[in-house]
């Protein structure tokens, strides 16, 4: 079967391999690296990772599905994860969520039809002192207000 993951993926994994006493320990890094390339983790990619590590594809799936950061469904170009845990809730994160729902016309967990935005609720991001906070793809945005959020979103291409 033709490989779906890039040479760079295998190069990165090759660099990490000597750092662990077992190859299975590469699973989380491999899933991260693969998701960086493909945006999400379709079954074929997870199958390829399983083959690379030498484990059953079901083992890849059980691990991947345990962690919320691995996207087992496609996500939009911009993946908004708004923290609604205690500290952010106390500082008005629900308003942000409602605002986004209205703005994009989608519910939590959904992606806009143009595949541009995916809206999710996130558990505590560890930015409670600068709440409310959200992740936009890999980046944190803190001390958010509805106006501030709009400014960020409107600046996205």
């Amino acid at each position, binding site marked *: 079967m033709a490989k779906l993951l890039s040479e760079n993926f295998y190069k990165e994994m090759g660099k990490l391999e000597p750092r662990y006493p077992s190859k299975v*320990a590469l699973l989380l890094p491999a899933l991260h690296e693969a998701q960086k390339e493909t945006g999400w983790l379709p079954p074929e990619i997870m199958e390829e990772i399983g083959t690379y590590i030498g484990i059953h594809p079901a083992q890849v799936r059980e691990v991947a599905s*345990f962690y919320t950061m691995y996207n087992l469904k496609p996500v939009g170009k911009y993946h908004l994860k708004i923290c609604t845990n205690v500290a952010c809730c106390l500082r008005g994160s629900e308003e942000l969520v409602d605002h986004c729902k209205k703005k994009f016309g989608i519910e939590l967990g959904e992606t806009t039809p143009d595949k541009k935005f995916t809206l999710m609720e996130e558990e505590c991001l560890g930015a*409670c002192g*600068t709440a409310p906070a959200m992740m936009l793809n890999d980046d944190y945005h803190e001390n958010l207000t509805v106006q501030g959020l709009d400014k960020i979103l409107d600046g996205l291409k």
Partner: protein
Amino acid sequence: METYKGETLFIQHFKNEEARSLDYYKKKMIGYESAKKALAMSQDDIINEVKKSNLRGRGGAGFPTGTKWGFIPKQSAKPKYLVCNADESEPGTFKDRDIMRYTPHTLIEGMIIGGFAIGSNVGYIYIRGEYTREFTLLNEAIDEAYKAGYLGKNILGTQFSFDLTVHRGAGAYICGEETGLLNSLEGKRGEPRVKPPFPAQSGAFAGPTIVNNVETLASIPFIIQKGGEWFSKLSKIEKSGGTRLLGVSGHVKKPGLYELPAGGVTLRQLIYDYCGGILNDRKLKAVIPGGSSAPVLTADEIDVIYDIEPLQKIGTMMGSAAVMVVSEDYCMVKLIQRITKFYAHESCGQCTPCREGCKWMEDILHRIEHGHGREQDLALLLSIADNINGKTLCALGDAAAGPVSSFVKKFRGDFEAHIRGKKCPNA
């Protein structure tokens, strides 16, 4: 408004974008001098110095670090591991993030010393997946340390070698539990393990393992530099040494991190003197004093010295030193529902009481918050919490049960108003 004028370890370097470089670390901080010193000491002497310091685990359990290190067997057929718990996932907690992004070398140096003290040549920093920037910054600092000869083979010309790898989590609170973390490190689901065996006997990759929090390990270079006794005297309370990074969030005027001597303030002083009091000068309703798993305190209970034992005495805990402040206008039922939803979401699902009980409590609380509560629900909630508390495989069950019991007991009137009024009075 108060600011602490005494000696602090970390906070003066935070928010300084220059601070994370090795150059800065050598000029303004410890600069791996403690590692040099430690590598010339015996392992026992280092452990004794840490014991003397009264350093207690900063992750939440507050276990004395020196004692923990002492559990590791001197001889082991399998390699030993030192693992840093940088999962920082207890809601309300955000201190380790700043250590990693502003003073990463304190952590790296602490791990070198710790590795040497327990006889381990391999260290991992398990960082929560969301901290992508901190992951990058840590890796940059580690690269610097390798290049300068502080990591790798024959550190500082000694026989000691130590390799350090940052391992990213991927979104699971339970990986902050040390055996869940170890499973995750090994490429498995982050499900906590049955104990015994404890990690010190069989941990990462079945080798003897010590798991320490970021702040704990980052404190080590200071202890070696100035001595355990100096460190223990930084605190204002017996049994706890050093300063503590306190994270205050929620309805205060100045949320953020504060570094204060252990046991140096009461909760009231922290909230009103340091954080400027309640947002919009409202009245205080409640304080969650140690991350969201800590049983809640009412406004009348905050004249307590903010440290491990005093909080334990009044039935709550200091946990990861994360203080969440709630003002009078916020609905307590909504709050506990949100907290319980979190624990239900983060339950790994292995053990029965946690998997079934957390969701059950969440469902009931959701009903009450939305006006469908029944009189018998409160007794039921207390009973479910009781059936979870102390009966689960790891501490997540307790973390979910404690808050529910305390909210229902201490704010019973708020729940009853929801049930009788058939809606949230705040809505």
